[in-house]
């Protein structure tokens, strides 16, 4: 079967790739584009490790076909820092050790940023429900939730 030639925008830059119809956006990002920050966990939309932004919406890239990204904008963890300057969420996760093995962290950061971009004063309950689709087997979540709340507080104070 012929591959599809897809042109899209990834982290603000035009990108193009060839992909099979059944390949997921996750497969394409990792294997064709070489952006391996986005992780594969369950590949069934349950764990959130593969979270990316697609046209401004938080999605699981394992549940999006690579061909669907035609003409769309994709934002991944690689686009989160501004050059060498970490995003405040990334900085806070480091300072407060809100990660252990780190495998879920790119997805958590993408999802948390999506929340703070629309609500910079979430309650703890709102943060917990928003991140319910990001599973972490190490931290027990408390440090993650605290880091997100503290980042939001810093961003409000800035």
């Amino acid at each position: 079967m012929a591959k599809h030639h897809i042109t899209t925008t990834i982290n603000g830059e035009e990108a193009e790739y060839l992909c099979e119809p059944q390949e997921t956006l996750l497969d394409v990002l990792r294997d064709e584009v070489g952006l391996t920050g986005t992780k594969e966990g369950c590949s069934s939309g349950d764990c959130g490790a593969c979270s990316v932004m697609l046209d401004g919406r938080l999605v699981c890239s394992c549940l999006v076909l690579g061909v669907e990204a035609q003409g769309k904008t994709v934002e991944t963890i690689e686009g989160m820092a501004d050059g060498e300057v970490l995003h405040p969420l990334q900085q806070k996760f480091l300072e407060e050790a809100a990660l252990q093995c780190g495998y879920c962290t790119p997805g958590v950061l993408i999802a948390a940023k999506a929340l703070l971009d629309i609500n910079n004063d979430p309650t703890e309950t709102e943060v917990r429900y928003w991140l319910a689709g990001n599973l972490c087997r190490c931290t027990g979540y408390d440090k993650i939730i605290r880091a997100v709340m503290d980042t939001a507080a810093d961003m409000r104070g800035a």
Partner: protein
Amino acid sequence: MSGMRYEAPNSVDEAVKLLADANGAARILAGGTDLLVQLRAGMIDPGVVVNIKNISETHGIAADGGAFCIGATVSGAEMGEDAALSAAWPGVVEGAELIGSTQIQGRATMAGNLCNASPAADSVPALIAAGATCTVVGPDGQREVSVADIPTGPGQNSLGNGEFVLNIKLPARPANASDAYLRMIPRTEMDIAIVGAAVNLVLDGDGTCTEACVVLGAVGPKTITVADAAAALVGSKVDEAALAAVAAAASAAATPIDDKRGTVAYRTKVAGVLASRAAAIAAERARS
């Protein structure tokens, strides 16, 4: 899925032709949250996947004289962001918003939830209680179908070859009308309902219920419309006695399975509890 083709037509006619030509070997891609999981798991092996998101008629939420037309590719997140829809049909919106995580909400559609025909589909009971219809397009043109007639059993729907759902329509409402949906899941978030209950009702100026519809999900192979529960509400002030009768009728109507997620006895009891609570919430919303 090695030989799978991908098509993203721009018109209804093109999509219908692609689907009809595939003669049953096609699958429709809207939100993809069921389709991609089924592809990955090898549960399906379609010859062609037809993405309907480039068809403008599947986009957006249109309000018209109090009625709403929700395109087949509108996500749960888009529904939740629509203030007018959320005010008019809070039960329908809360059902759709209960599907999956934030990530899933960015993609999953009510039309997909309907056509996937899971007995536990969270958006379906409230749609049926609302009296929603959908526009089905196909080789013979388009037809308006009651949403209740789409699912025919677990994983089965009534759509013919070449047909797909283009939109879902909610009727205009009289004053003092509202709805509610509640579900029971073993976790606190992101799980599949073991019982779902939707209630849609209309009150008159005195607070007496004049119309009601009570629909259960996840306690049978299809949703169950509980006429006795609706009858208990109509003519009442949605008081304790009426709510107790709703609970009894809902429990009596439930025909759940017994599995590790919930026993028959538990699901039957909870069906009554949720139906009565949903009725109380819908009435409270209708009064305010």
